[in-house]
């Protein structure tokens, strides 16, 4: 696999890749996010945690353009924007997975991951119809890339299986594969380990760490399992009722009294 996003934009490891400034989002009168600011640095694993209903998923939806915040702005790769379409976010290098898995259930694992290559394919429509010449070469090249992802995620056995028939844990893995196929600069993972057993969680953690270490992909993830968050992430931002209550390293955050009150100490 090639290194996704090799900092062509002149953003070096450690620089701010994405900054969220004063973002507020409301649905009708209900406030989902209130004046939240934080940043994600190039190459880090950034966790967003908080109790249920804290606005974590809304935050991801704002970042990749599913929701449009009423206030605040988002700077990605040095470019500020107020609203964005998911299509544009994807083409700028933001890939994501979903809390409840959004896959193309009728399509095979291979086709699902190939779909992640959509934006990377640009040979003309005409050639594609002929399946000849440059388009064929392109297809083979992308297939090779996708096969490497399949190998990486150890899902060779389900290559041709329609994903709707797969158990949940594997669907999550396929979804990660599809996101990786986009060679993203920023990978958003919404509860990548929800509903998994211990072994599947260990596998998924390993994949996330390897993606980060090997390709330098910046990762922002939402996760409920505190053990996982502490193990994986470089920095953690904590939300509660749509507000940011803490931001720092896992050690700092877990020592923070407001966090303990809001989240860690309270069984849920």
């Amino acid at each position, binding site marked *: 696999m090639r290194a996704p996003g090799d900092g062509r934009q002149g953003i070096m490891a450690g620089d701010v890749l994405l900054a969220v400034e004063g973002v507020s989002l409301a649905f009708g009168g209900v406030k989902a996010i209130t004046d939240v600011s934080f940043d994600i640095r190039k190459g880090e694993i950034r966790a967003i945690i908080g109790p249920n209903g804290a606005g974590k998923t809304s935050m991801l939806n704002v970042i990749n353009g599913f929701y449009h915040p009423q206030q605040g702005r988002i700077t990605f790769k040095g470019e500020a924007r107020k609203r964005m379409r998911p299509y544009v976010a994807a083409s700028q290098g933001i890939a994501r997975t979903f809390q409840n898995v959004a896959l193309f259930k009728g399509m095979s694992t291979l086709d699902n991951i190939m779909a992640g290559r959509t934006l990377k394919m640009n040979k003309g429509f005409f050639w594609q119809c002929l399946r000849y010449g440059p388009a064929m070469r392109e297809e083979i090249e992308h*297939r090779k890339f996708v*096969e490497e992802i399949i190998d990486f995620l150890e899902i*060779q*056995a389900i290559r041709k299986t329609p994903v709707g028939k797969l158990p949940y844990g594997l669907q999550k893995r396929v979804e990660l594969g599809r996101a990786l196929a986009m060679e993203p600069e920023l990978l958003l993972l919404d509860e990548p380990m929800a509903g998994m057993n*211990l072994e599947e969680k260990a596998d998924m953690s390993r994949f996330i760490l390897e993606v980060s270490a090997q390709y330098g992909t910046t990762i922002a993830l939402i996760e409920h399992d505190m053990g996982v968050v502490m193990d994986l992430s470089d920095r953690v931002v904590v939300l509660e009722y749509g507000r940011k209550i803490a931001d720092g390293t896992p050690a700092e955050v877990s020592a923070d009294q407001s966090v303990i009150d809001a989240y860690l100490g309270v069984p849920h």
Partner: protein
Amino acid sequence: MADTAARREDTFPKLLARNAALRGDRAAMRHKHLGIWQTWTWKEVDGIVRAYAHGLLQLGLRRGETIAIVGSNRPKLYWSMLAAQCIGAIPVPVYADAVAEEMAYVLEHAQVKLAAVEVQEQVDKILSISDRLPALEGLLYDEERGLRDYDHARLHAIDGIVEDGRKALAPVPAARAALDAAIAEGKGADVSIILYTSGTTGRSKGVVLSAERSIAAAADTVVFDRLDETDEVLAYLPLAWVGDHYLNFAQGLVAGFCMSCPESPETVQQDLREIGPTFYFAPPRVYESLLTRVMIRMEDAGLLKRKMFHAFIDVAKRYGEKILNGESVPLSGRLLYALGELLVYGPLKNVLGFSRIRVGYTAGEAIGPELFSFYRSLGLNLKQLYGQTEAFLYVTAQPDGQIRADTVGPLAPNVEVKITEAGEVLFKSPGMFLGYFRDEERTAETMTSDGWVKTGDAGFFETGTGHLKIIDRAKDVGRLATGALFPPKYVENKLKFFPNVKEVVAFGDGRDFVTCFVNIDITAVGNWAERNNVSYGSYQELAAHPQVYEMIASHVEEVNRSLAAEPMMGGAQIKRFLILHKELDADDGELTRTQKVRRGFIAERYLPLIDALYDGATEADISTEVTFEDGRKGVISARVKIRDCRTWPVSAETGATEKAA
């Protein structure tokens, strides 16, 4: 004759060179990578192995030293074995899923200098025990993933070693000549490989095999089953196991056929279909789980498909085995069977990857007669063999035309067997081992002074046919307090032949009656539960379900009835049983790596349950420590119910009823 030709090459590297010269452009090995089957010809393999061998020399591996091979079936690991053998070093394959402790013992005992492994996981495992391995100088790996940031002082990519060897070898004729000399220097009497047995009891033992004996044994069975260079195998069983080393590696080199390696352990089923092997081996449990899956799929199929399937399976039951055995069958039967082949058996074999199998074997455990004849009736030439690591596999084998479910067949070529008064089976065979590595005491225990090897199995020859029947481990055959014979495995197997039962552990030695633990088969029983609207959340819950108990009780009573029909075994009827709250697991030490029950360990671990089986209690509490796959430990506890079962009066005479079981 093929064997005289093979005899001249008395080591595996010499066989490799012969194959490269004789059939250089034929495929020697395949491996599916990134979705595509990569193929290497004999000539290519020869080139790689030679370069690799030189690379190993440069790494300091010397004649007589050992190199561990750890991982799944990968070409580079097989090449590691051959490359080591080229320079007279000894490969020691190790089970990849062995826990660190087991692995540490083997690597330490074998005094390995290098270890060739597949992936990061094994590198980590070996590094974690490296303080116990003073002799270990380096690790070679197949896949780089995850290893980029490791200290590469002692860590080398196999690709890199091969490349280095190639570069060093190409411009220097003297180096090539030296390598040729090293290969020629290898003698048939040299140690070819050390295979560690997984150890049903106690520590693993290193079975030392010599090159000439290994090749002699393989040459015999290649003739026996008429294998040649056009055959195909899929190497999917653990490469540290004698079966894989013998059936695929040794026979492949002797006969010159192509060995394919699966893409990953999970894809074996698909890979089988794509490769279509002509020679195939699987332990009974594989055949069993395949059948269970076929049956489940058929339950879910449309009405027409299901009807057709069952109708033609009945046809196969009636005529299939007879046709395979060359017995006379009415024309109408032949026609029906041909139609069945077209509509059902052919497609079914295709799905299972069995379409091209000419010779199929099973061994290791007793196989259920129904299961055995199911596959044979489909036209699959499934046979049984009996073997041991110490024999370099074959002791007995069923030749075509003499195939039965209840024996392991007559003696394999050039094998001698004698049965001691206590009933134990002893053998002498062409491939028999030299001794246990660095363990003279246990070598002496196993090998008699006049050269017989004790198998530890009790058995007898059937009068008239010369077929060997194995009852149980010799030391396991016990007696009840009443003096009645108690062969635990014999009893267990009868119960295990029911698809709903996965594992059984029977107790009774020195007791008043026989009792047992049962593990249900989660696939079969789970499917039953689904169809009968029985809801359950876990294995534990399903195992404790009253209806499941009812079902198992009826199976046990069936077994009792069949035991009662056999005068020798009637005393061993099962009076009480319980269904365990967890599946027996190799990670918890309850099964061996080859999935055999470790009786003693289980008896110790579940002592409170055994006590309850004999003190008349109707339920008992148990809590056990379990190891999760990531190595973490936890405790599960449960209250297990105990059931009494009906037994039958023992009949004095055996009769036709015996067959009904």
